[in-house]
């Protein structure tokens, strides 16, 4: 028989190898699942993971990679800080929606005025909106000890209802023939977030995501705050003795990850989505949790994981069009990937020894 021996520190080799193993295992299991559903497994996997980049229609799908990866990376880089400290913001989806609503509110209030300050003001509003929505679970935890997991998650549903209310009520396009949904910001130049370089899919959200990665890398590895976050996650009692104030960390991590999620929502509503609709929240906030874990909560890993998750989104859409695979395939893949990742993780944390 085998026994597990805890490792003192996680070897770099396994830290890098386990996400790769998880992706491969997901592809194999996914292929088996497709075969069981009566699809050609090899063609399905190729359509999801290969064709968006190198297939015949890749000219259309390649720019989509950055469009989808931008918000995922932006949200995940914030979540990773909290996860490192053992602070679980599960409600990024809600902060994303509220950020979008606040940003869109600035644009709609200014409409049809054209001025240079409108887009920057929207960015501020989006970040503040997401921050405020993230601060609700933070304050409720600090003041009353309420679980931030449950509160932040409940607030996702509340945010979705607010988005629906906005789309049907206060933000409804007055010239929209009574259809629900706000004005389309893509048609309002001062407030729109266009593609910056043609056919790359890069908009301001992608730039913000890169900045967020660099800043979080700096904070985590070079700043005292990163040390505090890591200590609080690894040994809460030791952190207290080292002078870390847990309340501050909770407020900081939830607020910051909320602000980044809010920014992601703002860039989405001003760019690819264009308007606030009832179904504005598209699950980026939840997928970003997987991105954070798959990227091992490390900025470089999050970059790669975000691109990979974006690929599965695009590949999933492609597979839906080309092979008639169900749209929810991607969700199943994402869930499986997280399972495999968490399972293989035992290799980084324990040494497997033969029992003497």
């Amino acid at each position: 028989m085998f026994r597990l021996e805890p490792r003192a520190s996680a070897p770099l080799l396994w830290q890098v190898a386990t996400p790769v193993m998880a992706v491969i295992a997901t592809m194999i299991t996914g292929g088996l699942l497709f075969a069981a559903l009566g699809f050609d497994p090899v063609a399905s996997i190729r359509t999801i993971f290969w064709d968006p980049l190198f297939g015949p229609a890749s000219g259309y799908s390649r720019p989509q990679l950055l469009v989808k990866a931008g918000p995922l990376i932006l949200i995940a880089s914030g979540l990773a800080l909290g996860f490192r400290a053992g602070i679980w913001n599960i409600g990024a989806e809600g902060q994303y929606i509220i950020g979008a609503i606040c940003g869109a509110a600035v644009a709609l209030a200014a409409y049809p005025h054209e001025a240079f300050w409108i887009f920057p003001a929207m960015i501020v509003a989006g970040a503040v909106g997401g921050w405020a929505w993230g601060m609700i679970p933070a304050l409720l935890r600090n003041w009353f000890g309420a679980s931030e997991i449950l509160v932040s998650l409940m607030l996702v549903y509340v945010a979705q209802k607010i988005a629906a209310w906005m789309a049907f009520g206060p933000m409804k396009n007055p010239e929209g023939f009574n259809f629900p949904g706000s004005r389309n910001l893509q048609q309002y130049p001062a407030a729109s977030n266009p593609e910056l370089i043609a056919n790359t899919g890069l908009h301001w959200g992608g730039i913000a995501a890169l900045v967020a990665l660099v800043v979080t890398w700096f904070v985590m590895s070079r700043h005292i705050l990163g040390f505090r976050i890591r200590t609080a996650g690894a040994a809460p009692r030791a952190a207290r003795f080292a002078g870390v104030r847990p309340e501050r960390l909770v407020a900081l991590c939830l607020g910051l990850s909320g602000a980044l999620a809010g920014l992601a929502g703002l860039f989405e509503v001003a760019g690819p989505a264009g308007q606030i609709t009832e179904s504005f929240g598209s699950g980026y906030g939840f997928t970003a949790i997987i991105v954070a874990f798959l990227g091992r909560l490390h900025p470089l890993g999050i970059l790669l994981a975000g691109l990979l998750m974006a690929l599965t989104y695009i590949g999933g859409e492609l597979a839906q069009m080309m092979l008639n695979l169900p749209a929810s395939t991607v969700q199943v893949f994402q869930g499986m990937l997280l399972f495999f990742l968490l399972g293989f993780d035992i290799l980084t944390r324990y040494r497997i020894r033969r029992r003497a």
Partner: protein
Amino acid sequence: MIDPIAVFVLLLGAATPILFAALGELVVERAGVLNLGVEGMMIGGALAGFASAHATGSPALGFVAAAIAGAALSMIFAALTQFLLSNQVATGLALTLFGLGLTAMFGKPFEGVKAPSMMAGPFGLNLMIWLGLLAVPAVWWFLMRSRAGLILRAVGENHDAAHGLGYPVRKVRIAAIAFGGAMAGLGGAYISIATVLQWTEGMTAGAGWIALAIVVFAQWNPWGVLAGAWLFGGVTVLQLRLQAAGVAVPVQLLSMAPYLATIIVLVAISARQKFGRSGAGSTPGSLGQPFHALR
């Protein structure tokens, strides 16, 4: 005029899915395991139950299938957390995402199909409502009066001590997780078979998360779960009544009520736990911590 008895009957129906799921999760947490995958197991049960009830024409068989599906999904969680010692928060979350995706994938053929009618029971309440109500004293008796329940609580309170006394920590926890999965499956199936009467993607709409909050609200006590489920059912029914009465509040805002109510009760009970004299005594001591026997 609102008829109080009619409202109470509606309340019982609205409370039943949460009651099942929360009672199951209560047993899981009493064994020291935090399974955040309740929502995923509920939606799994909702689809499996609906599909089976539709195929066989028997709601009873539907509920059996739902319990099996919920338990099967929970075994993924059990394998990862109990054998591979994965983080329980992340694993539960993965289970929820996986369950939502899997059911969306396999549920397509069942959209727009009707469920067979429920079996009526005494006083015009269906049998599942009665079963849910009976489960409360049953779980209470098991936990507080039976030897097996005592062992389960010992495992949840201090797994190292329980292990030292020779109790099979891992086996107890796996059994508890399976029970929690089956109960979540039943709760989910109640939504699809008895309440909504059809299958739609993501139809549990956060009920699993509300169940998790109600376990905290109940302070890990089965009778508290009943109170929490009724409170939630009351808010839901009231909110629907107000919608029907055409109050001058937008429908979307009224439908936030259950989620806001959940936050409020969670905050109230956490505050009582934090500032009250009782302290944090009722939280199972080993909740959420992985168990790794070195000897």
